[in-house]
C-alpha cells in the first residue's frame, strides 16, 4: 500500500509559537496506547532481513569491490586458513571473509557509538530523569529524523532514546552473531548485514547526540554557535592543565561543572583532543580545543597536560605509559577503558587526590563523572607546580645532538604509514636544519602514530623530537572553530530543499571523520575551501571540523571566520562530534520529508530511494581510520549517500563501485510515467577511495549529480565538474556525455567544446525522468 502523505504545510514556527494544536487526518492508536500516524510505513523497527531487498538493489548496482588486507582467516582453531584461491576449513571463501570482516568492523563501530550513547543516556536519565523532554526549540520540529524513519516513533523524552538504544543493541547482537564461524556464507548477505549495522550506527549516534544536546544544553541547530578557541597556542601552560581525550562528554562536563561551581574558570585550563574536545566546547565555551586525533601523542609528549582524563574511543592505548614518562596523572572514566588502574569510584575524593599527588598510584579509574571533575581539577592544581620543569622545552641544541646519533638505516620511513621523510628530517636536524621536522609537524603531516620511534635502532625519541622542534617554531598556533551546532533547522531545510533537490545548489559535502590523512589536515581544509567558494553547502564534524579550523586563508582568516554557519550555499556548518554525523543523514531525510512530504515513520526504503536519486549529498572521510568511520560510511551508504575516503580507506577492504560501462545497471523506474527509463551513473559510486586530493575533489563534484536534477541544476553541477576536472586533470572529462540528457543540460560556458565531444561520441538526447526511482513500480504507476 502506498502510504498517504502527511500534511506538512502547517508545521512552521507560527503554529508552534502560538501553542496551537492542529490535528489533521486520522490518528490511530498503537498497542501501547499511544497515538501513531496512519501513514506508518512498511518497516518500523526493521529486522536484519526487512531491508534486505533494498540492500540487494544497491549491491546490484554498486558491486562490492574487495581488496583483501590479509589473505588469511585467523578467527577459529580450524585455521589459520589461507584463502588465496582456496576455501577455509569452515568453507568460507575470500569474498565472504572480506565481507565478514567489514561486518565485524561495522559492528565494532556501531557498538562504540551505541555503548557511548547508552552510557550517556543512562547517566542523563539518572541525573535529569527519564521524562526529561526532547525539545530542540522553535525551529526544529523534526527533532529525530532517523528515529522517526527507522523506529517509526517521535522520541519525546530521554526514556524514548533508551528504547532506541535497546532496539539498536538487539539488532547489533544478531549482526555480531552472524560473524561467528559457521553462520553467514554469502558475501552479499554479509554486505546487507554490514549496511544494517551501519544504519544502527547512524541511529545510535542520533540518540547519543540528541541526549547530550537537550540535557546538557548544547547548541540546538544554532547557526551562530560561538567561535571556540583552538590550537596549542591558546593553552596557557603556566596554569594547571587538564586534558580530556576521547568522545564522551560526560566526564569533561563534570570537570567544567566543578570548576564553575568553585570559581576556578580562570585558574585551570581545560582542553580536549578529538571529539571530547568538540563536545566539551559545545557544553561550555571556556573549554579549549587542542585539535584532532593526530595531536594526541605530540601533545602528551609536550608535557603540558598535568592530568589526562580519558573516556572512550580513539585514545592511544599506551596513554598511561606515555603519561608516566612526564609525571602526568591519568584518570580513566568509563568501563570501555580501565587501563589496569584501581577502581576508586567509591573512595573519598580527598583520598584519591592524595594518592595521585603523592604518586602512590599513576592513575585511577573513577566511574562517577562528578568525582572525576573534582579529582582531575584538584590534582592538576596540586601537581602543576612540581611539573613546571616538564613543560619547558629543551634547547634545540639538545635535539641536534640526539639527531647526530641517526645511523640512516631508513626504517623510520619504511614503517611510516605515509612514508614521510623522517630520516631526512633527523639527518638535517643533526646539521642544525630543522625545516623538514617543521614541515612534518605542521598540519599534522606526521600524525604522530609513533611507529618510527618503535623501529629506530638507536632508540631516538622521534616523536618527542618532532614535538619539541614543532613547538619551538609553531608554538603560537591559535585558531577559531565554530562550536558544533547540532542538527539542521527545519526552516533551513525549507529554504534549501528545493535548490538541493533540483540541483541549483551543486551539492552538500560533508567532511567528516578521523585524521589519518595522507598529506596532513591542510588537504581537508583546502577541499572545504574549494567547495565553499563554489557555492556548495559544506558540513563537517569531528577531526575534519578541527582540521578545517587549523587553516587560514591568504587574509589570515580561518574558514569559520570567513563563512557563516548556516545550512545554505557557502555555509560552513560544524555539526559537532562524530555522533553528530547522524545529522548529515538527518538533513537528507528531512529534505525528503519537509520538501517532498514523504512520510518518515517506518518508511526507510522510500526515503533512502529519494535521497539516492534526488539529494546531491556526498560524504568525505579523507582521514578515515577507525571501525566507527567504517560504520558511519556504511550507514550513510544505505541511505543512498555516497562517500569518498582517502587512500588509506582502501584498507577497509571493501568499496562499493559502480560500472559505467554497463549501461543497463543505470536504468531507472520513472514512477510518474510508469516506464523504465535510461539513467546515468549518478551517483557513480557509493564508496570510493581516491589516491590524492585532486582525484578526490573531482570525484566529489561528480558524485553530487543525481537523476532528478533539472536542466538548470544539471548545468550547474556539470559546470563544477568540468571546472574541477580542468583544474586537476587539464581537460573536459571524457565521460561528460553520460550526464547530458539533452542540450539544455550543457553548461553554457563549455557549450562549444561539449557539443564537439557529443558529436564525436554519437550521443543522442534522452528523456528526463519525472520521478526517478530505484524502487519497484507502485501498483498505480503500472496503470493497474
Amino acid at each position: 500500500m502506498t502510504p498517504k502523505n502527511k500534511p506538512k504545510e502547517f508545521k512552521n514556527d507560527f503554529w508552534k509559537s502560538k501553542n496551537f494544536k492542529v490535528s489533521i487526518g486520522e490518528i490511530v492508536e498503537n498497542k501501547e496506547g499511544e497515538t501513531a500516524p496512519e501513514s506508518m510505513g512498511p518497516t518500523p523497527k526493521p529486522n536484519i532481513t526487512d531491508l534486505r531487498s533494498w540492500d540487494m538493489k544497491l549491491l546490484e548496482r554498486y558491486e562490492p569491490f574487495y581488496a583483501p588486507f590479509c589473505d588469511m582467516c585467523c578467527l577459529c582453531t580450524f585455521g589459520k586458513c589461507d584463502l588465496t584461491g582456496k576455501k577455509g576449513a569452515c568453507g568460507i571463501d575470500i569474498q565472504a571473509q572480506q565481507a565478514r570482516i567489514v561486518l565485524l568492523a561495522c559492528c565494532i563501530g556501531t557498538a562504540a557509538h551505541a555503548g557511548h550513547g547508552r552510557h550517556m543516556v543512562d547517566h542523563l536519565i539518572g541525573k535529569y530523569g527519564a521524562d526529561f523532554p526532547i525539545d530542540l526549540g522553535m525551529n526544529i520540529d523534526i527533532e529525530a529524523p532517523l528515529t522517526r524513519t527507522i523506529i517509526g516513533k517521535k522520541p519525546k523524552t530521554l526514556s524514548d532514546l533508551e528504547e532506541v538504544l535497546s532496539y539498536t543493541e538487539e539488532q547489533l547482537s544478531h549482526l555480531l552473531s552472524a560473524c561467528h564461524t559457521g553462520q553467514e556464507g554469502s558475501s552479499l548477505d554479509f554486505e546487507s548485514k554490514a549496511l544494517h549495522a551501519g544504519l544502527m550506527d547512524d541511529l545510535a549516534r542520533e540518540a547519543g547526540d540528541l541526549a547530550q544536546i537537550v540535557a546538557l544544553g548544547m547548541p540546538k541547530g544554532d547557526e551562530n554557535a560561538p567561535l571556540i578557541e583552538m590550537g596549542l597556542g591558546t593553552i596557557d601552560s603556566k596554569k594547571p592543565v587538564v586534558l580530556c581525550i576521547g568522545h564522551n562528554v560526560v566526564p569533561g562536563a563534570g570537570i567544567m561543572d566543578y570548576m564553575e561551581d568553585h570559581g576556578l574558570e580562570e585558574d585551570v585550563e581545560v582542553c580536549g583532543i578529538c571529539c571530547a574536545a568538540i563536545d566539551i566546547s559545545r557544553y561550555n565555551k571556556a573549554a579549549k580545543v587542542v585539535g584532532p586525533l593526530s595531536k594526541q601523542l605530540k601533545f602528551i609528549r609536550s608535557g603540558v597536560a598535568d592530568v589526562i582524563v580519558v573516556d572512550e574511543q580513539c585514545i592511544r592505548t599506551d596513554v598511561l605509559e606515555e603519561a608516566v614518562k612526564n609525571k602526568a596523572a591519568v584518570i580513566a572514566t568509563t568501563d570501555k577503558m580501565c587501563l589496569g588502574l584501581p577502581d576508586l569510584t567509591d573512595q573519598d575524593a580527598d583520598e584519591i587526590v592524595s594518592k595521585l599527588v603523592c604518586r602512590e598510584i599513576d592513575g585511577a579509574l573513577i566511574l562517577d563523572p562528578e568525582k572525576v571533575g573534582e579529582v582531575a581539577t584538584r590534582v592538576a592544581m596540586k601537581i602543576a607546580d612540581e611539573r613546571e620543569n616538564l613543560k619547558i622545552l629543551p634547547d634545540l641544541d639538545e635535539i641536534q645532538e640526539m639527531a647526530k646519533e641517526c645511523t640512516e638505516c631508513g626504517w623510520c620511513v619504511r614503517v611510516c604509514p605515509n612514508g614521510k621523510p623522517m630520516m631526512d628530517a633527523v639527518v638535517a636536524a643533526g646539521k642544525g636544519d630543522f625545516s623538514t621536522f617543521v614541515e612534518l609537524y605542521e598540519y599534522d603531516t606526521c600524525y604522530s602514530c609513533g611507529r618510527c620511534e618503535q623501529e629506530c635502532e638507536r632508540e631516538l625519541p622521534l616523536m618527542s623530537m618532532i614535538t619539541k622542534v614543532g613547538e619551538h617554531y609553531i608554538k603560537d598556533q591559535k585558531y577559531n572553530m565554530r562550536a558544533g551546532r547540532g542538527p539542521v533547522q527545519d526552516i533551513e531545510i525549507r529554504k534549501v530543499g528545493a535548490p538541493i533537490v533540483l540541483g541549483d545548489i551543486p551539492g552538500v559535502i560533508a567532511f567528516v571523520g578521523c585524521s589519518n590523512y595522507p598529506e596532513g589536515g591542510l588537504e581537508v581544509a583546502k577541499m572545504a575551501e574549494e567547495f565553499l567558494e563554489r557555492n556548495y553547502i559544506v558540513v563537517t564534524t569531528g577531526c575534519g571540523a578541527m582540521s578545517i579550523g587549523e587553516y587560514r586563508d591568504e587574509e589570515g582568516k580561518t574558514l569559520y571566520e570567513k563563512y557563516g554557519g548556516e545550512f545554505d550555499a557557502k555555509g560552513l556548518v560544524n555539526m559537532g562530534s562524530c555522533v553528530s554525523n547522524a545529522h548529515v543523514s538527518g538533513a537528507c531525510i528531512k529534505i525528503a520529508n519537509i520538501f517532498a512530504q514523504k512520510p518518515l515513520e517506518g518508511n526507510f526504503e522510500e526515503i533512502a530511494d529519494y535521497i539516492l536519486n534526488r539529494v546531491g549529498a556526498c560524504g568525505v572521510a579523507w582521514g578515515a581510520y577507525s571501525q566507527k568511520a567504517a560504520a558511519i560510511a556504511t550507514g550513510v551508504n544505505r541511505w543512498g549517500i555516497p562517500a569518498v575516503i582517502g587512500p588509506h580507506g582502501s584498507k577497509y577492504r571493501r568499496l562499493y563501485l559502480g560500472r559505467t560501462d554497463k549501461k543497463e545497471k543505470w536504468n531507472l523506474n520513472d514512477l510518474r510515467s510508469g516506464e523504465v527509463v535510461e539513467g546515468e551513473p549518478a551517483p557513480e559510486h557509493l564508496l570510493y577511495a581516491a589516491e590524492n586530493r585532486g582525484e578526490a575533489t573531482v570525484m566529489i563534484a561528480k558524485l553530487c549529480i543525481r537523476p532528478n536534477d533539472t536542466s538548470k541544476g544539471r548545468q550547474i553541477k556539470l559546470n563544477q565538474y568540468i571546472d574541477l576536472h580542468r583544474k586537476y586533470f587539464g581537460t573536459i572529462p571524457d565521460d561528460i556525455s553520460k550526464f547530458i540528457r539533452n542540450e539544455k543540460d550543457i553548461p553554457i560556458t563549455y557549450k562549444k567544446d561539449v557539443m564537439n565531444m557529443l558529436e564525436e561520441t554519437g550521443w543522442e538526447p534522452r528523456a528526463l525522468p519525472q520521478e526517478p526511482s530505484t524502487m519497484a513500480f507502485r501498483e498505480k504507476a503500472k496503470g493497474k
Partner: protein
Amino acid sequence: MNERVIPWQPTVIAGPKQALLVTPETAEMMLKKAKRPLMIMGPLIKESSALPFAVLIAEKRNIPIVSTGDMFKTLNESDIKSKPYGVVEIVNLLKDPDWGGINGEGQHDLVLFIGVIYYIGSQGLSTLKHFAPHLKTLTLCKFFHSNADASFPNMKDEEWIKYLEKLAE
C-alpha cells in the same frame, strides 16, 4: 630474509604468497609473452627522473597507459596519451574477465604498475591477486610489492633508474 624482498612497507604482508623478484631481463620476458599489456601510472612519479623511462617502456611496446590520481594532467601536458581512472576503478575493471580492455580489444593479460601510492597500490594488487586469475601483475616501482605476481626489489633511486633504463632499451 633478503631485505630486497621484504615489502617496502613491511606491514603489507598479507599471507604466504609473495611476488617473484624480477630483474629487467625477466620483466622483458614477461612483456614479450604478453599479448595485451597495460601500464598503470600513478602520481608518485610526477616529478621523478623515472617518468621518461616509464613512458619509453610503454611507447616502445605500444602499451596503453592508464593514469591514476591526478597523473593525467602531467602526462597530457607532455602530450603523452593516457586514460584517467582512479586506481580502484581500473582495478575493478581489470578483475572482470569480460571487460573489453582499455582499447576495447579484450581484457589485458599483463598489468604493469608504476608510481601508484604504495599502500593503495598494494591493496589493488591484492584484489588482482585474488580476483583476476586471468592476468599477471608486474610492478616497476623502486619498492618491492609482495602482492604483485612479479616485482622489482627495493632499490635506491640510482639502481632503479638503471633497471628502468634497461627495460626501456
